[in-house]
């Protein structure tokens, strides 16, 4: 589904991603772990189409090169990013913005706008899935939301947009135990044989709920180790030093 080959990304002359390779197949869950500042969020932003980076390398989604597409075109192709720090947008209502998002994607695909009643039905259904308070959906996007509410709102949006490739950037941070379970549940329910999920996290805890097929360690802009879910347990126990040190010794 997603194929990344020799991806480099720099900003203002500083290289952050330094030749990254990743293959994600439909139906799979990949976890990306790694120390602070290693480039995880940068990878997520680059995949979502953020224009601030100078990008080299190849990104294909279902065989289609998406590296020159605008963020909204990537969204229409099925890419979704749950932000590590969701943006507050005063004055733009959650509901109106989602309606525009759904219909702009439909327009991109040559479909007519969704009927108002169908949209409301979808909204209700997905709100229930992540147990998001109705009041929150009517408020301005993330404005004044608590940390956990913002994360839940990200998963709610993901549910509304049904992406093929979902990238969750530290969606678990700031969530209480119940919220973590609800959010993980939501993600699991949305999982299918023809979509894939990348979860960026620091903690094994989330991976107890969302069980990954593969775990990767991102360090200094590259994936330095890949394994199965056992790798996450090992990292939890030993930290990153044992992986990084030999690398530095080279």
């Amino acid at each position, binding site marked *: 589904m997603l194929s990344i080959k020799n991806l480099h990304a720099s900003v203002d002359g500083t290289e952050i991603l330094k030749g990254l390779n990743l293959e994600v197949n439909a139906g799979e869950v990949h976890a990306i772990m790694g120390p602070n500042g290693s480039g995880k969020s940068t990878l997520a932003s680059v995949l979502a189409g953020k224009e601030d980076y100078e990008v080299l390398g190849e990104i294909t989604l279902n065989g289609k090169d998406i590296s020159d597409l605008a963020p909204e075109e990537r*969204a229409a192709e099925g890419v979704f990013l749950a932000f590590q720090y969701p943006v507050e947008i005063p004055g733009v209502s959650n509901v109106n913005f989602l309606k525009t998002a759904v219909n*702009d*994607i439909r327009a991109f695909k040559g479909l007519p706008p969704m009927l108002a009643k169908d949209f409301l039905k979808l909204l209700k259904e997905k709100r229930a899935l992540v147990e998001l308070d109705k009041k929150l959906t009517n408020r301005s996007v993330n404005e004044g939301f608590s940390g956990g509410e913002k994360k839940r709102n990200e998963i709610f949006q993901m549910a509304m947009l049904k992406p093929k490739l979902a990238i969750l950037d530290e969606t678990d941070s700031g969530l209480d135990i119940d919220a973590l379970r609800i959010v993980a549940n939501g993600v699991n329910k949305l999982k299918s044989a023809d979509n894939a999920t990348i979860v960026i996290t620091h903690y094994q805890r989330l991976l107890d709920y969302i069980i990954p097929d593969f775990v990767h360690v991102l360090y200094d802009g590259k994936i330095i180790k890949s394994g199965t879910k056992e790798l996450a347990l090992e990292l939890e126990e030993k930290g990153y030093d044992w992986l990084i040190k030999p690398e530095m010794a080279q």
Partner: protein
Amino acid sequence: MSVVLEDKKQAFLANFVAKSADKDSSIAKQEALKALENLEFPTTRDEYWKYTRVGKITNANYSQSPSFNVSDISRYLVEGLGAYLVVFVNGFFSEELSEISQAKGITICPIAKARKEHVDEFDQHFGRLSKHESQFFSAVNTVYNTNGVYLNIEKNSVVDKPIHMINLTDAANAAYNPRNLFIVEENAEVTIINSYETISGSSFTNSTTEIYVNEGATVDSYILQNQSETSKQVNEIDVVQKANSIYTANTVTLNGELVRNNYNIEVKGQGCKTNLYGLCLTSGNQHIDNHTIIDHIEPNCESNEVYIGVLDDSSTAVFNGKVFVRSEAQKTNAYQQNKNMLLTDDASAYSKPELEIYADDVKCSHGSTTGQVDEEAIFYLRTRGVSELNARKMMIRAFANEILENIKIDALRAVLESKIDERFS
């Protein structure tokens, strides 16, 4: 004054002479005539005109107002508003285009008629608030005005529907001086919409409006400026508020080459509320200047002022808001805010919110922000599939909404929303 400047001034004033045929023997006119002997064109050396050059107004040649032939004004109406209509074309009152059914408790008529038929009321109020002795354009208006609206709302009358005054021009380059006088008596309530539009060509509108908001009265006023991109306007609004009255003004500027609005509000009674809201959306080389003065003279009053600008291309917006709190005006609550969003690097905003406080027990705050569209927010919206154009539109609408949501008339708000959307598509 130099001979050259004097000649220029006389040449400018000559544009208006022919039109002021109407007999006006008011004291104000005499005062203004006298003042004009010494008043000069404002220059950027005057603090009050620091950011706005009037050369575009004073150097132009104006055509003599031709007779007009306008029959369809539907596109200038607010759909679903059902208002009293008072229509002027090139400064002339159009009886045919207007719809002024007489209703109990209200008098609406052209000011030229009021001058003859409501002599006492007229004389007591006309020119008592306008700044014709100190301001050049106000003096010009006071001497050379031809027509405008006279409005008198009797005590305790609640006007059943809004009064919509439509000022149209249809000439190569028309210059006219609309003059309005609104007297709103005790506990009366009225909503007034004043729109300025261009059918064709250019114009210079030099408008002066005096508004008396008496005890317990409520006045909701809207000014909609949407003239052609080569039109100029100077607009003075002088208001006096008596105890427990509420005066709200919404000024929305969507077009015009040069627009200067001067609000002068004297709050002369306790328990008053004053709300001044403004929104300007500028593009091209437009220059929009909003000057406001709220003078709190008595205690226990509240004023709220929010002006918002969305500035595109190489346009300019100026905001200068002065709030005076006099020594007697204890327990005043005054809030003043100016926010500008610059859509390009070439757009500029000059913002000067000012508070002058002489009382000690007051709550006052003011602020000003100028910034760009939040690009992080745009990226966020786009990652959800929202097109870049729609994302920008949403951000602009959200910014402008702080003013739009104050507009209580749904039909009017809808018109403005669609005009704003049109503008950015």
